[in-house]
């Protein structure tokens, strides 16, 4: 979306530190660290769960929500070209679907907790896991 709008984007944002007129300071979660980033706005960010805890809805908000009129738009309303949306607009398609292959051997360990744990440790030793 950012590419079509020609704006910058940053993914996996875990914290918005500050927002000014022209830029925002954010933290991006990477696989091995996080990065502090200055991002010029307008921009698109995608966020991870840590970013925020949603506040509980207020009674007044709930009342307002009941009465709110939410417009529903379809493709015609937003003047989307049929060629570019839905199945027609997608370059990928599902060729086939199938059930995932089942996993190999399964064993339920039974007995008293003591016996179970000993059995397990013995098995894990045998398999070279310990």
């Amino acid at each position, binding site marked *: 979306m950012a590419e079509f709008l020609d704006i910058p984007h940053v993914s996996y944002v875990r914290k918005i530190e500050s927002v000014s007129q022209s830029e925002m300071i954010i933290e991006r979660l990477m696989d091995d660290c996080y*990065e502090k980033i200055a991002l010029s706005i307008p921009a698109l960010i995608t966020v991870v769960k840590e970013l925020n805890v949603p506040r509980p809805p207020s009674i007044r908000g709930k009342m307002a929500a009941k009465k709110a009129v939410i417009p529903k738009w379809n493709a015609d309303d937003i003047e989307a070209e049929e060629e570019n949306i839905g199945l027609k607009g997608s370059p990928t398609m599902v060729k086939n679907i199938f059930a995932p292959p089942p*996993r190999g051997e399964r064993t339920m360990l039974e007995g008293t907790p003591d016996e179970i744990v000993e059995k397990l440790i013995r098995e894990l030793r045998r398999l070279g896991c310990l």
Partner: protein
Amino acid sequence: MLIKIDIEKCTGCGTCVNVCPFAAIILKDDKAFITEACTLCGACVDSCPESAIIDERGKEAIREEEFKGVWIFAEQSNGKIASVAYELLGIGRKLADELNTELSAVLFGPSQEVEELIKWGADKVYYVDSPDYAFLDDELYSKTLVKLIQEQKPEILLAGATAIGRSFIPRVAARLKVGLTADCTGLEIDKETGNLLQIRPAFGGNIMATIVSPTSRPQIATVRPRVMKRGEYNAQRTGNIIKIEPLNPSGRVKVLERVQDTSFCKVNIQDAKVIVSGGRGLGTEKGFQILWELANLLGGTVGASRAAVDEGWIPYAHQVGQTGKTVCPKLYIACGISGAVQHLVGMQSSDIIVAINKDPNAPIFNVATYGIVGDVYEIVPLMIKKLQEGVSE
């Protein structure tokens, strides 16, 4: 496939099912579905009273035959090439050999390890060594990769489904207006058409889907770390390293600082050989203390289900599953995890899975090598005790 059903228009009347000379159309949930038996004969197209069958066979012409070669994007962090890059070279080599074509790697950012890509199977490396590329700059990375693709025209591009790949590869696909399949678990070449068959779990892993991009090139796919196996390492292997002129960054995104040493960064659960994982069944944040104890004893780390992370018992970096990390340790011990499919897709390729749960019907037992019906707070401390005593030697 070049003939497809518009599900919204399809009324499930079954007319096309009877028309198809190859019995390649079946009814599923009152909608027509074209199976692999389809020969693209087109007999069904005009039969549909709802005009719900889309015929795109004409589009085939768009596909330029000149697209050749398999590419993988090799990401680096602090100059160190990510493990997933070598895994991509493993599968990339197979695909390239099957297509009888070259395998190239693309490396952005300075790294001492560029030769390693050749030794792990690449024929060529397109290398940008400018320091502007040291950190992920989505716009710069995608602009540069798009330019390279337009010049060299590869038919397949693979990248890691990592923080880097997931972030900028969609931008590349959008700019090129081509298809992208995320988080593939299998990649094969369709022997008849030469299309890349991109296999991935759909609907939370309940079902696997094979996805193709028949009319656009390159075909782009991302693959999660630890899903593919590395290929053969050959220290004598030679290849071309081609330096690419860097582009100028737009400056709209600037990395100010990289922070490495906070608590959540210490865990890279994807590299762990042993993971002891906890879920809602632990009941409390304190439960993770005994899991840490067991993990430390086994030389591993701690993982968690989404439920435990949502409760705030442990940071998100530990989360295993659909919206967390995919892990593939030698030993995965699931404690108090029921085993929702979203969790299973993230851990079911572990070598050995031990599940401890009170509920004998928990779905986690379907993937467990060893299942234990019992109380985590009884079993885990016993394990710790017996391991410390060195029992049953």
